[in-house]
């Protein structure tokens, strides 16, 4: 059943599946586990090596003593946990119901085309979240309102710039600068202005890569984990540079 053509087709599917998962911010061991589960359901074995930007995988079919190797680039997609849970579900469905490759491909495309959350709603939620954060750090009502508004402006700008495909580091520096620039208006009439400025950029902190990196390291994938942490560290550096820009403009000193 598993002739040469079939094995190639399957390897290409798994390569796309795995790189898509890794690109949308899933930790390494889950990607490997899901991919092996699908392969097992079709009577094949895979061995994967993952790096920050590429995956190398070999599919073997013990019955026919055939192997095929694929190297794929990992796309830089926005983090998406819905793909994480739906595609993990798909791997169990394949395992339990023994889906054919065509069915798998069709369902994979269906999940990829899922309706996305309204970006305006996300902007509002992020604004409120950062406002709640400002309150947690002891900001008063005015500080909270200013933080909500400046976060929404900053996050809107971040989405727009990411959509245009501008370099990640520039996006983070500019968004941090703009959000803290807007939050600096609190200096005019507020006693807790410093809290407002300091919390206005917290929505940018790359929490998901930080945790994924730590989880990867804890599970023994130190190489991918380490590179995720390095990326997260560089983004934090960019946030600090953007924030220090408006601090130096308005206060002539850092926090």
């Amino acid at each position, binding site marked *: 059943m598993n002739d040469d053509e079939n094995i190639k087709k399957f390897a290409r599917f798994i390569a796309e599946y795995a790189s898509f998962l890794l690109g949308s*911010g*899933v*930790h390494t061991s*889950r990607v490997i*586990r899901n991919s092996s589960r699908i392969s097992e359901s079709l009577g094949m074995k895979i061995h994967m090596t993952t790096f920050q930007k590429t995956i190398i995988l070999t599919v073997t079919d013990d019955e026919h003593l055939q192997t095929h190797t694929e190297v794929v680039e990992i796309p830089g997609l*926005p*983090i*998406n*946990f*819905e793909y*994480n*849970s*739906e595609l*993990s*579900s798909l*791997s*169990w*469905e394949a395992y*339990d*119901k023994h889906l054919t490759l065509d069915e798998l491909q069709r369902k994979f495309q269906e999940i990829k085309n899922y309706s*996305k*959350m309204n970006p305006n*709603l*996300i902007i509002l*939620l*992020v*604004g*409120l*979240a*950062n*406002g*709640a*954060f400002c*309150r*947690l*750090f002891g900001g008063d009502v005015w500080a909270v309102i200013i933080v909500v508004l400046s976060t929404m402006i900053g996050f809107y700008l971040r989405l727009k710039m990411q959509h245009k495909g501008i370099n990640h580091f520039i996006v983070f520096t500019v968004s941090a600068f703009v959000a803290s620039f807007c939050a600096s208006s609190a200096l005019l009439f507020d006693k807790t202005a410093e809290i407002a400025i*300091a*919390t206005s*950029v*917290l*929505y940018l*902190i790359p*929490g*998901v890569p*930080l*945790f*994924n990196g*730590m*989880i990867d390291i*804890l*599970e023994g994938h130190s190489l991918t984990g380490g590179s995720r942490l390095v990326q997260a560290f560089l983004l*934090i*550096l960019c*946030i*600090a*540079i953007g*924030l*220090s820009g408006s601090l130096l403009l308005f206060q002539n000193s*850092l*926090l």
Partner: protein
Amino acid sequence: MNFTDIIIDGLLAAVAGIGFGSISRPPKRAFLYIAILSAVGHALRFYLMKGLNVDIATASFCASFAIGSLSLWFGRITFCPVTVLYIPALLPMVPGMYAYKSVFALIKFMNHLKDSDLAGKYMQEMFSNAVVTFSTVFMLALGATVFIFIFPKKAYSMTRRAN
């Protein structure tokens, strides 16, 4: 600190968890549980730090341990992998303020290189902030992941819908 403070802390953390979580687009059915997890975790850490004077890393570990154990239960209800539930819930506890204070201390250190007293002070500030950031993030990740190590079979089959 009284009971209302803890409740308010939990509610604010729930708003923060939903908002920061929504950036990474979790499935809609997970939002309620993410809110509960963030509230429980953050309120527990708040109580430990303010009420019992526990340090931030240990308190974070206890909080994420609680989040990890609950997410194992919630994962079964929502058919979501545990990481989809607990990573957004941990986001409000990331010590972002310490992270960029560390970078500021680095900038100030470079500005005062010639004054050895001030340079030493900023060097120390940079290191202490960096160590707090790193150990807190590490403890947060560890606390929630410990459950995957203890119950691997259970944690890996959350999204299995059949049976």
